[in-house]
């Protein structure tokens, strides 16, 4: 057999840490996401709820402007607190969901439908790193328009108020951090799971929006015949509202307890992970 002595040498220089290699996938996918001007414009619009918060904080502390507008500081301060305390969270969470709807299918659907996974999985990374890399894209995209924005407005308000306001209202940043972290995790994994199964971008996007609309509609319809508060568990809107109310210490809008809403969100996250686990294989097997 014609085999000659080894005349090549493998690379033996420094390597980046194995546990951080998933960030390579994140970096390249992020660059691809922003290659669309339409998406970049939409993403910029997602910062509007945060900007509205910044504006309210500014307004409520600008007595000159307030007097010109004929508004009192008490009214504006109460409005700012209500906005910062619940509404901004919701106004951030909804566009964040749509960012995930737009981006997720581009991250994963093509890899699955075109047998592209071996391109990634024949590298020193595994499926967990691949999923982590893709979730990382969503986490990096959704964070600035959700919890980072929330903390920014909170910090601005604390700076303006002074006198230990930040300590008295510590619940607000915690709510933004915990609530949005849970929301980003659930939405990211669900959108990746649907994208992996739907395989085609339009189908994945329709599926994601459909899940929210259909489950909310189904919950409303069921409530007409079955008079049980537990039906709200099927409605993502009710679940999120309950969680937000729980986090900010407000009264829950629906009849379900907070723990059940958290459990429901956890179940969606767990189910999404299962879907991803079963669908993301290095090779599709046609039986």
């Amino acid at each position, binding site marked *: 057999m014609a085999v000659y002595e080894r005349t090549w*040498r493998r690379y033996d220089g420094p390597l980046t840490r194995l546990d951080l290699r998933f960030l390579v996938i994140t970096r390249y996918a992020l660059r691809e996401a922003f290659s669309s001007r339409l998406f970049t414009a939409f993403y910029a619009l997602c910062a509007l709820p945060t900007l509205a918060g910044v504006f309210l904080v500014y307004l409520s502390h600008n007595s000159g402007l307030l007097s010109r507008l004929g508004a009192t500081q008490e009214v504006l301060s109460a409005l700012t607190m209500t906005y910062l305390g619940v509404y901004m969270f919701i106004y951030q969470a909804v566009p964040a969901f749509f960012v995930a709807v737009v981006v997720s299918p581009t991250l994963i659907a093509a890899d699955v439908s075109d047998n592209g996974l071996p*391109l990634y999985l024949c590298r020193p990374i595994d499926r967990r790193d691949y999923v982590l890399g893709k979730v990382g894209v969503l986490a990096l995209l959704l964070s600035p328009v959700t919890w980072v924005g929330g903390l920014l407005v909170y910090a601005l308000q604390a700076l303006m108020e002074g006198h230990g306001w930040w300590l008295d209202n510590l619940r607000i940043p915690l709510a933004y951090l915990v609530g949005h972290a849970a929301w980003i995790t659930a939405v990211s994994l669900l959108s990746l799971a649907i994208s992996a199964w739907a395989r085609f971008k339009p189908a994945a996007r329709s599926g994601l929006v459909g899940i929210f609309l259909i489950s909310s509609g189904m919950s409303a319809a069921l409530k007409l015949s079955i008079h049980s508060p537990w039906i709200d568990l099927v409605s993502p809107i009710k679940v999120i509202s309950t969680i937000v109310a729980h986090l900010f210490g407000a009264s829950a809008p629906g009849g379900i307890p907070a723990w059940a809403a958290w459990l429901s969100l956890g179940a969606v996250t767990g189910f999404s992970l299962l879907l991803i686990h079963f669908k993301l294989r290095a090779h599709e097997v046609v039986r």
Partner: protein
Amino acid sequence: MSGATDRIVFHDVSKFYGEVLGVKRVSLEIPPGLTGLVGPNGSGKSTLMHLTSGLLRPSRGEVSVLGISPSRPEQLFPLVGYCTQYDTFPAGATGLGFLTMALALHGRDRADAREQAWKVIEQVGMTDAARRRIAGYSKGMRQRIKLAHALAHSPQVLILDEPLNGLDPMARSEMIALMRHLAEAGRHVIVSSHILDELNQASDQVIMIHGGSVLAEGEIPKVRGEITRHPIQVLIRCDKVHALAARIFALEHVVEAKMLAEGEGLLVRTKDADGFLTSLNRMVLEAGIVVETVAPADDTVNAVYEYLIGGDGGGS
């Protein structure tokens, strides 16, 4: 199980996709060099490649690549380069970007990954198109960039699934020369291909697979020698063709002797190649025949494929 550090070892490996058989009780030892993986569509070639690359796990048995289990991607993939048969790339990627990302996944820093990506791009002759999007590449260019992707991190084992598909003759020849060069440098190069003639020129050994079972493995002439149910063909170019033919017909183990169209030689089919060659020496000396060439005519991948897999669809 053998933990050979210079071989790819399959020990009683089976792979089932539910009730569908992928490969069945495969035991192999693949040494360095260029190994051709040959078999019809659906025979289990890709399954065997995926098992080697750790992209599939065996249902039964064990696989070891240079002493490493394919279930350890962090240890295996620095040593293995895999070129998939699928024509798929990350959306919007350029050739250079694609290779740089692959190298970054191997842990190279940005500058080093880019430098190495350029080197391998030059190696596969894609310098001019490196900054263009892969989506705009021709089939041949995409094949080259896939090969570059497999080669980028200088792996010791290269697994190339149908790398010659879509390439024009010139590009195929260059690709084979490159594979040959890599094999001669001491690497394992495992190639599946339907282009048997070209595989025949390049391969050190073949693995023939059909219906999930390995029908034959080893160097092509040896494999051919073991197929006793098909007489071996020997081509003889000489003068005094008629005189030689008359003598050859008298030999018991000769099944058939055909005169070549130009009348410059014979094509002989015999059940005993060694016996025939010994007799031929004697006959040539006795009759004073001038022999120009004596060469086996069917110890090619094509012929072995035809005998083992073609015809009856895979024999014993």
